[in-house]
């Protein structure tokens, strides 16, 4: 949760009083869940709960805020993991994931809802910069957990490259360690997530701009130029032939480049000016 976010501040005051609840047991199966304490701090948003009212809606947290047009603001108690997004924005769309109607919200919940309406008004005309076409790489860790719980089921086989299945079988811990160790080199493969060995051999994350710097320099120095060209084409939407063209593009857009897993494992150029106000989230949320 980002308590400093505008929707918790203006124009209506939102008095957030945290209370402690037991950490849902289902959270333990999700990335980061094991590290959570016995209790979580939560802010009460509504006075009725499932099954009295609908359970609401949470969104995929992995890659949610990997583009400047989106921000995860708060999670909420749910069955989809501690980071699932209950309050968030993508472009001109604001997710209010809680299901209560106003008369069933708490006073602070009602004020926050009003603030969310006022906040999204600022994004008039700013449709999403990226569309969700891929899963964020942390899903690899979720799948690794599936190997423990559902290891003998067919669908799990499609979640990992054949070579990994042959090596690790249903040993969840080995999958987890492998994907954690290689998180910065992952990209979607035919079956689950694969390590990009070409990027790994450079020792640079495939989602850091240093990768572009390194590859453009390699082109300029004619040092493994074919490898550099392949990587640049793989992770950008450009297809320049000459090193000078890559250099010009990189320098022109350097300050506006961002990498998105959810948007297709590409470096894209931010063409919008209004930035999100969210910088980071924690596991505290609403209920």
């Amino acid at each position, binding site marked *: 949760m980002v308590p400093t976010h505008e929707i918790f501040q203006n124009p209506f005051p939102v008095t957030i009083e945290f209370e402690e609840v037991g950490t849902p047991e289902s959270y333990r199966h999700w990335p980061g869940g094991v590290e959570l304490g016995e209790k979580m701090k939560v802010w009460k948003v509504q006075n009725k709960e499932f099954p009295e009212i609908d359970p609401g809606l949470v969104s995929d947290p992995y890659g949610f805020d990997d583009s400047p047009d989106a921000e995860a603001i708060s999670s909420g108690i749910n069955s989809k993991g501690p980071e699932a997004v209950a309050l968030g924005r993508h472009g001109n*769309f604001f997710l209010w994931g809680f299901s209560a109607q106003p008369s069933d919200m708490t006073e602070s919940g009602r004020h926050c809802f009003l603030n969310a309406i006022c906040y999204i008004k600022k994004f008039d005309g700013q449709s999403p910069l990226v569309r969700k076409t891929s899963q964020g790489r942390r899903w690899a860790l979720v799948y690794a957990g599936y190997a423990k719980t559902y290891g003998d089921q067919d669908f799990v086989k499609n979640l990992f490259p054949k070579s990994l299945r042959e090596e690790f079988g249903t040993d969840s811990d080995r999958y987890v360690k492998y994907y954690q160790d290689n998180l910065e080199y992952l990209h979607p493969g035919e079956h689950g997530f694969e390590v990009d060995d070409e990027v790994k051999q450079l020792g640079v994350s495939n989602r850091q701009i240093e990768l572009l710097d390194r590859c453009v320099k390699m082109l300029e120095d004619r040092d493994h130029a074919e490898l550099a060209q392949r990587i640049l084409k793989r992770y950008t939407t450009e297809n320049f032939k000459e090193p000078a063209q890559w250099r010009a593009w990189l320098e022109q857009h350097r300050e506006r480049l961002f990498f998105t897993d959810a948007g297709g494992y590409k470096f894209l150029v931010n063409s919008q000016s209004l930035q999100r106000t969210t910088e980071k989230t924690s596991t505290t949320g609403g209920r």
Partner: protein
Amino acid sequence: MLCKALIGLTSAVLLVTAAARAADDVAPVKLDLRILYAGNRESDRAKDFAAFLEEHFAKVTVAGLADFKPSDADGHDVVIFDWTSIYPRDKTGKIDNSLGSISMPQAPALPQRFSRPTVLIGAAGGQLAGSQQLKINWL
């Protein structure tokens, strides 16, 4: 002594009342925003939302979710998509999934260029988000 005690008590009550009024005073401000609420328009839920929004915003229009067209957003600052419960319920009104399947609302068709500020709530939001390839999705 009794009078003083009473005076003291009266002062305390007045202070509490003043504090309560101060808290209430922040809520009724009407903001100069025009809101379109598209939901299950004849439902109690829609009426609850409309009444609440009318307390706080200059203009509130209520529309049906399935009938919504992008041009309906013209003349409004923010659109809200919402729907009533999609789950089967028992006689007491509690959700009981053993009684049947969920009943999803028909989401309006929006072009990807739709750029009006929009709040998505619950199932209606989930339906709409999917067609827009949003990061907001039904996990």
